[in-house]
Every structure is written in C-alpha cells, then in structure tokens.
C-alpha cells in the first residue's frame, strides 16, 4: 500500500508537468500575442524609430500580402497538404497583369485585380486536379508546378522587367490609396479575413475542410466529398496567390521574373508559427494572423536593430524548426497526460 501511495505522488508530479504543456496548447494565441508585445518592447528599446506611425504603416502594409497568402496556406495545410508553388503563381499573375496594364493604360484597377485572381485560379485548379483527381503527393505536384509557373513567368516576360514608369498611376495607386481611411492593401486583407473567418467557421463546406484533415476515413463515412474539398482548397490558394500577385506588383511598382521567389517558405512559416498543425485538422484564423504579424515584425525590425539582412533567412529557418518541434512536444505532453489518466 505504502508503495502505491509513493507511486501516486510521482504520477501526480509527472501529470502536472504534462498538463502544463497541455495548457500551453490551449493558450497558444495568447502566448503568441504576449511574445509579439515583448518583441515590440525589446525592438523599441534598441531603436526608438520602431514604434512610429510611418514605420508601423509600412510594416502593416507589408504584412497584408503575407497574411492573405497565409490564410490560403492554412486551408491547404489543414487538409494535410502543402503548396510550394504560391511564390511562382504570385509572380506569374503579377507579371501578366503588369504587362497588361502597361499596354492598356486605361484599364480599371478592379479589372486588373480580377485578371490576377483569374490567373491564380487557373494555376490553383491545375494543382488541385493533380492532387485530388490523380493523387499526386502535394509536395511533388506543387514542387513541379512551382517551376513550371516560374518558367512561364520568365517566358512571358522574356526576361524583361515591367517598371513603375510603364504602369499607369491608377494601377500603382492600388497600394497607396485609402478606402474608409485604411490603406487599400490592408482593407483588402481585412475583407478577406472577414470572409475567410465566416467561411471556415460558419459554413458546412468550411467545416468539412477540417473534417477531411482531421480524419479522412471518417469523412468518407460521413459522406464528405474529399476530391471536391481538395480541389477547392488548392483553387482558393491559387486565387489568393493571384490576387497577391497584383497587390505585390502594385506595391513594389515592378514586376520581375524572380518576384517573390522563396516567399512560400515565409508563408508556411507564418502558418506554423500560428499553430496550424502540419498533421492536418487544426488551425485557427486568429493564430495565422498573429503568425503573419510576428513574421512581419521580425522582417521589419531586424534592419532596425542593425542585424544584417543576410541573417533573415537563417532566423526564419530556425523559427520554423523551433515551432514544429515545440508543436510536437506539446502534442506528446497531451498524449502522455491521457495515458497517465488510465487506471491499471
């Protein structure tokens, strides 16, 4: 009896430790927020120009495009997939739209945006077709498409840039104008997030995305059309990437063959930081926003702290690895907790 009492003490102790990890899982958004605030304070003490209106505006507009893409990537990752092609899709749509507006100077910006979305959709549907209908692994399909789209971008542009002087003012103003007193880019991102929030939380189709990722077998029994969901998810991702292409080109006022090369990795990092599980089935809009903001702040503040820009990539890689490993450890803690609860 005495022995088992001792046992119990030990068990309780371990249980506490494990439940701390489990509690962390619940408050991950709060933790991220606190981390962001601490980071801001730290950066501010290093360089007082960080928390100025000018810098903040710049930072937020930069984060707008990242967060739009992260939303689409979240959906893809929830279905247990990944999309490496979005940087190329973005470049292709940006390039074609930039060329179009440089020829048809009078084109309305909204038409330009629609063209961009259309191009992105075509790219996304193509990937969705290979992943959902043929069953090619997402990593392979999007790796191939990433290069096909990038190659097409170079081919379309013939290696030439489209520079700011070739673009009509109305087009460039997409990035500088304001709607209701908010920068248009930020406004678009907010609208997309509101729609996205409604879609994933308040429609059946939105919830089915989670169901497919959480347990594909059960989803089949519940009569969810997996092919349709996958096709849709990659199409949305493509459409958002196409839109981002137009915004990107307008913001930086240039379209190049290598626009946004490697940007998909930043987007994936934002999702992982935001708590989207690469095993599928879970991920929250709020988390993804925070993840995107955190990366946006990091990218903005490193130069302010006199960190060489060449450190940026290494830091990003470490963050991704750190975040996925932390996620895995948290999950293990939860599972261990469940095992300890079992009575023998």
């Amino acid at each position: 009896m005495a022995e088992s009492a001792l046992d119990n003490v030990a068990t309780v102790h371990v249980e506490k430790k494990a439940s701390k990890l489990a509690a962390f899982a619940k408050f991950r958004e709060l933790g991220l927020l606190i981390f962001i605030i601490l980071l801001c304070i730290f950066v501010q003490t290093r360089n007082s120009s960080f928390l100025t209106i000018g810098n903040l505006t710049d930072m937020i507009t930069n984060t707008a495009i990242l967060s739009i893409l992260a939303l689409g990537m979240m959906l893809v990752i929830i279905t247990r997939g990944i999309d490496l092609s979005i940087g190329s899709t973005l470049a292709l749509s940006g390039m074609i739209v930039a060329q179009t507006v440089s020829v048809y100077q009078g084109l309305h910006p909204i038409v330009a945006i629609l063209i961009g979305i259309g191009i992105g959709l075509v790219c996304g549907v193509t990937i969705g077709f290979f992943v959902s209908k043929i069953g090619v692994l997402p990593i392979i399909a999007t790796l191939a498409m990433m290069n096909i789209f990038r190659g097409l971008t170079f081919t379309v542009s013939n290696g030439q840039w489209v520079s700011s002087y070739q673009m009509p003012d109305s087009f460039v103003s997409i990035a500088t104008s304001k709607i209701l007193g908010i920068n248009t880019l930020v406004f678009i991102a907010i609208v997309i997030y509101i729609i996205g929030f409604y879609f994933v939380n308040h429609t059946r189709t939105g919830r089915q995305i989670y169901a497919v990722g959480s347990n594909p077998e059960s989803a089949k029994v519940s009569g969810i059309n997996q092919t349709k969901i996958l096709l849709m998810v990659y199409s949305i991702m493509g459409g958002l990437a196409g839109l981002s292409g137009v915004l990107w080109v307008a913001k930086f006022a240039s379209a190049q063959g290598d626009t946004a090369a490697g940007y998909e990795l930043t987007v994936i990092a934002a999702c992982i930081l935001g708590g989207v599980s690469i095993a599928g089935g879970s991920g929250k809009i709020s988390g993804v926003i925070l993840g995107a903001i955190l990366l946006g702040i990091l990218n903005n503040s490193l130069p302010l702290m006199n960190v060489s820009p060449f450190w940026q990539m290494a830091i990003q890689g470490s963050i991704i690895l750190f975040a996925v490993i932390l996620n895995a450890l948290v999950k293990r803690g939860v599972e261990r907790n469940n095992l300890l609860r079992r009575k023998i």
Partner: protein
Amino acid sequence: MSEYVLELKGITKKFPGVTALDNVHFKLKSGEIHALMGENGAGKSTFIKVITGVHGPNEGEMILHGQKIQFTNPRQAQEVGIAAIYQHVTNYPDLTVTENIFMGHEKVQKITGRILWKEMHAEAKRLLQSLSSNIDPKALMGSLSVAQQQIVEIAKAISTNAKIIIMDEPTAALTARESEELYKITESLRDNGASIIFISHRFEDMYRLASQVTVLRDSKYIGSWKVNEISNEDLIVAMVGREITQIYPEKKGQIGEKLLHVDGLGKTGYFADISFTLHRGEILGLTGLVGAGRTEVCQSLFGIMPYDKGDIQMNGKKVRIQSPKEAMQLGIGYLPEDRQLQGLVLQWGIGKNITLPALKKLGKKGWLNEKKEAKLAKQLAEKVNVKANSIYDLASSLSGGNQQKVAVAKLLTADLDIIILDEPTKGVDVGSKTAIYEIIHDLAAQGYGVIMISSEMPEVIGVSDRIAVMREGRIARFLNKEDVTQEAILEAAMTDLSKSNAG
C-alpha cells in the same frame, strides 16, 4: 407487421480464404436490449458491419420493419435509422463535441447556409444532459476520455434519430463506475423506444442489461435465448464448447531449467506488476480479454515498446531490452499478431520474407549472398510446409495459414531461446492450425521456451503447460495444466471489476 424491427436470415459473408459468417440468424424486437455474445473471432464484428452496410453479405436477407432492404454503403444504413458505436471510436479529434455530434447533418440557416452554432451547441448540451453528462459541447473531442467520447458517440446516434443502436464492446475501456453510467444511458435509450444490440464479452453487462441473448461461435449461429431462461453454465458452454474437431498433439520433451525471469515489469498506461518465470521446453499460455495488455507485455519483452519499470533476467543474468535487435541478439523471437501489417512484406516473395531477420548471417561484410539466401529460404519454407511453388511466390498470394507458416519460418532463422507467439492461429483454417500446433510442440521439445498469447480457450488449454490470465494490465491468476478449465479462465479474466478497483 411483425413484432421484429430487424431480422437477419441466413447471412453468410466470405472473405478470401475465410468464411467470417456462416448462415447467421438474428431477430431484434422493438424496444429490447439484445446482447450478442461470443469469443474473439466468433464473427460479431463482421456481423455488425453487415448490419451497418460496411460489408455486403454474400447470402441471406435483411428485413427492416417488415421490408427487405439492402445497403451498398454505410450512409444508407444511417438514413434508415441504424447507428453504430464502434469499439475503436471513429471521430474527429480536432473538432468540437458539437461538430462531432452533428457532422453530416448540421443545422444551417435555410437561405444563407450559415451554420447555427448557438442552436447546435444548445442542442448538443441538451442531448448530453439527457445522457446525464456535463461534457462541454465546445470542448475538443480529442481532449475527452474514452468514456466521454463514447457518450458523445451515443449523443450522435440519438441526434440522427436512430431507432436501432448497435454498441460494440462499449464497456471494454471503461471503469466500473463509467460502465454503470453507460448501463443507465442504455436503459433510458430503450425506454425512449430505441432497440439496442449490445455486444460484449462480459457476463455482467449482459445480466445487467439484456433481455435476450444471441450467441455466435466460429462464425456460426449457436442459438438465442431469453436471458432469464438460460443458466450461466449453459451460456458458457454455448460460447466456448465447440465440437472437438481440433486434435492437440501430445506433449513431447521435458521442461528444463529456468530461462527467463520477469519481475515487476510495467509500462505507464498499459500494464503493471508483471512477474513470471519461463523454463526451457515450457509453453506458457497468456490469455485474457482483448485490451488486457497481453500484446503490450510481449512487445515490451521484444523491445518494440520498451518497458519503464521492472527487471528482466535471462539465464540468471539481468538484461535490458530496448529494441527488437537487442531482443533478437538475446535470443528472443516474436511472431506478431497482425501478419499482414507486422509480420510480412506482402509485396515480396516468400524467400525474401523468410531471410529478412537473418540478413546479417547471410552476408559477408555487408554483401548479400543470394545463393546462400535462396538455399536457407527453401530449407525453412519446406520445414514449415508452406504450400507454394517456389520461394519467389508473393506472400500476398498465400492463404492466411500459409502466410503464418512463412512468419514462423522467419523465427527459425535466428538462434533463439525464447519464442513469443501472438495469436498464432488467428484467421487460420483448421488444417493449418494443427500444423502450427505441431510446430509449437516441436519447438518446445527442442528446448525453446514458448510464450503463446491466445484468446481461444480450447487452444490455450490444449497447448500450454501453464496459463497466465491477464485482466486490465495485470496478471490475475496462474493456472496449471492439471487444474485448468475454461470456466476458471473466464472467471479470472472477467471477475467483477469493482473488486480490482477497490484494491
């Protein structure tokens, strides 16, 4: 209209090489709790899958409310009001309780298609409260205990307005108190007009709940009785007392010196306090209900699932086993339960399968000697009598029994002292069973120590020298060959849970 809501007549279901159900009958009255009993592998699970439309039967008919029906997929069964709560819970761990309850029949606003969360949460709460449970509908399914998840599954069945609810071993993973809760819920379901098929190993479940009991054995229908009209003894005989078609070989050889001593072995969440001794030439049977921790103990001995408490001594020396390779070097071999997943590489030929554990012996500085390999494979495949044309025949083309022989041949490649067999005759036809028993006895006669896990009581009794019965992660009782009976095993494996909970 007949008094039965559901009738199944002459259901036969064949899988390649196995007849899983052989002319089975079943009649379910409206508003009754009907227990379906039988040993592991008696065909209960397949039977449920036929009712729920997962499998289509080869022969026989199904009559629902007096009308003949046929399902081609599980959704059709759901639509006519049949719901099943499976042994291994199938749900969405990352979604909330409410969503799990309403998946596939969410409440939405007619025009906009907006999900009515408030209404769904409220309805979920109401459903759960009607099951006298205070689970938070907004909690994640994955964070609930197994018992709670089962209650959610029941709520789901109610929310679909199921009139026939099938529960497959719902009490298997529950404590005594949780089981009592479940009994109450089940009774209230019945009182509200549902008919329930309750599948269980436990007699207490049946006596507590059911008014009618149907017994299956060896894929066949044995009979159906009113619970108060059949004695416990008769029921046990119905469940286990098969006709003697199986001949168990005579024991050859002698039991020798002490080979393995296990002391206080434990692994958090799986088993605890496992102590036993195994001698050369001895066959130790390990039995108990599924989920009692038998496989986990043996996988710990083999290093698949390293133990975290206790000691193992081999030949008087203390050893540590953390990986299958270490176990094999110490002379422990393990024949896994699931041949197809754990035992064989199905896409490979017989020969390559047999030599996989022995590659080191067949190689010289890492180079593989294929001639030597083919010779060894042929020799061992012939030794265990695999029915095939060449050692290049694919493992996937063999019958269950022959696949098992190949798996046994794999063990024979190594210099072993101890052989652990996990359900060696599961899914094997009668002819091959005898061959496998012969092999086991030959092994013991040659001085191996054998541990055999089995759920088939006649087999455990017929083959073992000594039997350890496990219950809930502990060894409940040791029985010697002389004083073992099926009743004694059943009693040790199933005795009232509250007793063990008190200790």
